[in-house]
């Protein structure tokens, strides 16, 4: 039986597998934040004048704001002047014209992450934009997308090529001073993805962005803007990893989705930022604002997230259901282990008639972690016939962790109906005994039971992501069986 024990030990020993650092020459700003830094950044990116003004306005508002304290998370204050606000791989003065010109070290990095950027090894049918520290390094499959009229490029490029589009929608969903972290992002975001799907176009490929923080002492502030014009459809995937470092690193992203009449966006995230080690040292602070505006009639947005990484997660992908009959969905799996803390959920703001929303949240807490669902469901007076259904389930593994539910439900319309349910359970000894009696390893049994618990969410993920998500849970749960 020695082999089996050893296998278990090996499994538990396995660590965060994306924790390597890429040795690459970088151009990095000195730490610190000021109007000058923002001007330098904007200048470096050769941004249009309106953009600089926009950033400065955000910065000035940010200075007046206070870091929010209402979330059920606890961390030392972030020292914003110790962070570098820009880091980019050094490369020839001109942007690479094709992938062949991309630094081979970078390409190898993405190969290691399982995200082949090179044409011949590309994932079939998925176009990838890779963001490395502060800049987008490569976008694949540009041609077939262009043929369909789809714009998929780094947002810095969009600012050059389509300034009017960006100007019209940037900040229209998440205003510059929406919250502390969004204001910071608005001031300093360095890159991110921009997507425009024209009227009536069903995007021929899954679009995907992979984010990687590599440099030390830098923050990552990416900005994603997706516009789905009338009757269009797009499925967008997002993944992220970071090296293992002892200090905490800040990630403050903003994602804005705009949906016009009959448009549909499916936005999936597998968040696997470095969670810190088993003593709680290091890890990413993931303070993210994601919001979709269903401005058009019959539009539909679906957020699916699998959150296993980060030391702290502060994230509430939301839907503003403005258009009549618009639909918002939120499917979430959030797993915390060791000393991770998550405060995550969604906001469903029902403004239009017959708007509908569904919230399925599965929280799993292990180790000494804390996992909270925080959600808002709001029916405004105009939300005739609106509906919401919310199901929040928590699973506890071990007796040193916390599982919390903080749902806010507000209604001002008599015809609206909301139903909210929450339950808490644990992986029972009986379930474990049944699995083990059938010869299944305890670790595998836990991961199987947890996967079963998350099934309703995983089925919303695109196929290849669902497989990845399942594996991720398995890795994240290692060592949780005591």
């Amino acid at each position, binding site marked *: *039986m020695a082999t*089996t024990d050893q296998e278990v030990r090996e499994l538990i020993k396995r660590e965060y597998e994306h924790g390597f650092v890429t040795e690459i020459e970088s151009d990095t700003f000195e730490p610190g934040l000021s109007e000058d830094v923002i001007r330098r950044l904007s200048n470096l990116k050769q941004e249009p004048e309106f953009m600089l003004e926009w950033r400065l306005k955000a910065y000035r508002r940010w200075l007046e704001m206070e870091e929010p304290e209402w979330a059920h998370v606890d961390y030392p204050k972030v020292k914003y002047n110790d962070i570098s606000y820009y880091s980019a791989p050094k490369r020839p003065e001109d942007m690479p014209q094709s992938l062949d010109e991309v630094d081979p070290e970078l390409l190898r990095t993405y190969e290691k992450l399982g995200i082949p950027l090179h044409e011949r090894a590309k994932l079939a049918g998925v176009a990838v934009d890779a963001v490395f520290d502060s800049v987008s390094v490569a976008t694949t499959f540009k041609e077939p997308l262009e043929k369909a009229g789809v714009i998929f490029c780094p947002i810095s490029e969009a600012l050059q090529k389509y300034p009017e589009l960006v100007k019209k929608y940037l900040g229209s969903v998440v205003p510059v001073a929406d919250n502390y972290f969004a204001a910071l992002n608005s001031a300093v975001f360095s890159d991110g993805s921009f997507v425009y799907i024209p009227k009536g176009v069903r995007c021929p490929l899954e679009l995907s962005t992979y984010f990687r923080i590599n440099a030390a002492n830098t923050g990552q502030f990416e900005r994603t803007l997706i516009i789905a014009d009338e009757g269009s459809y797009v499925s967008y995937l997002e993944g992220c990893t970071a090296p293992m470092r002892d200090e905490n690193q800040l990630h403050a992203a903003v994602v804005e989705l705009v949906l016009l009449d009959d448009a549909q966006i499916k936005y999936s995230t597998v968040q696997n930022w470095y969670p810190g080690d088993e003593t709680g040292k290091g890890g990413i602070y993931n303070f993210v604002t994601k919001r979709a505006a269903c401005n058009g009639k019959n539009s539909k947005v679906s957020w699916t997230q699998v959150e296993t990484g980060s030391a702290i997660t502060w994230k509430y992908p939301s839907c503003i259901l403005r258009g009549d009959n618009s639909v918002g969905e939120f499917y979430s799996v959030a797993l915390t282990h060791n000393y991770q803390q998550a405060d995550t959920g969604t906001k469903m703001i029902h403004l239009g008639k017959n708007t509908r929303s569904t919230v399925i949240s599965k929280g799993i807490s292990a180790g000494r972690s804390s996992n909270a669902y925080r959600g808002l469901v709001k029916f405004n007076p105009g939300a005739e016939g609106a509906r919401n259904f919310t199901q929040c389930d928590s699973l506890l593994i071990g007796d040193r962790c916390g599982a919390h539910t903080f749902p806010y439900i507000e209604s001002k319309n008599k015809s609206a109906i909301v139903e909210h349910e929450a339950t808490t359970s644990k992986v*029972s*000894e*009986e*379930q474990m*005994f*049944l*699995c*083990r*009696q*059938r*010869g*299944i*390893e*305890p670790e*595998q049994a836990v991961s*199987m*039971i947890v*996967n*079963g*618990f*998350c*099934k*309703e969410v995983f089925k919303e993920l695109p196929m290849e992501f669902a497989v990845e998500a399942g594996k991720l849970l398995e890795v994240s749960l290692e060592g949780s069986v005591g």
Partner: protein
Amino acid sequence: MLSIKNLHACVEGKQILNGINLEIKAGEVHAIMGPNGSGKSTLSQVLAGNEAFDVTAGEVFLNGDNLLDLATEERAREGVFLAFQYPVEIPGVSNLQFLRTAVNAMRKHHSKEDMNAAEFMKLAKEVSKQVDLDPAFLKRGVNEGFSGGEKKRNEIMQALLLQPKLAILDETDSGLDIDALKVVSDGVNALRAPDRCIIMITHYQRLLDHIVPDYVHVLADGKIIKSGSAELALELEAKGYGWLGIKDEAVANQ
């Protein structure tokens, strides 16, 4: 094949088994009967390695290996199978996924390659027919929303799939109607094999009409107080446990 020597066990500080001795040879079927609280289910849980029970003395050998040294899952891979009296539900985990994981864990232990999904599906469909379960059950969550009878058939189906050396059937007959009892019994009879031994734990004699045991043991206060042939079960049915000097309300009330 199976040798239990002086087995003592307790749960939450309460002594339940008080020195069980039992020898079972390959190919034999032994029935263990006894009133409620006599320790029948505890014996099955202890053999399977439920950590809620503490073994305070004794030894259990299966083919020369001391089972008590092995973790639950290791015993399972050495061929110990327990058909649970109350199988637990595991929401969201499909029966198919569960069973394939179990079968491959066994195969790995015996240095065999994993069975691929298609092969496994074929096999699983065959055995599910053997216990009259619609193959659609394979896609449902483990025991999720199964009726009592379906759960029991599901247990026997798993035994047929995992081909154990020692199968312990804990009250597999309880809660079954006559038709279901027949199906389950046929399944158990199909399990009988020269290299396998079976322990049937039951309260009533009716199961033994369908599966005729080689030996019958009567358990009371955590000890085997009488052993005999299949006739002993009939005698118990006729006379109750009283003539052995034990009280049993369940039988007395009949």
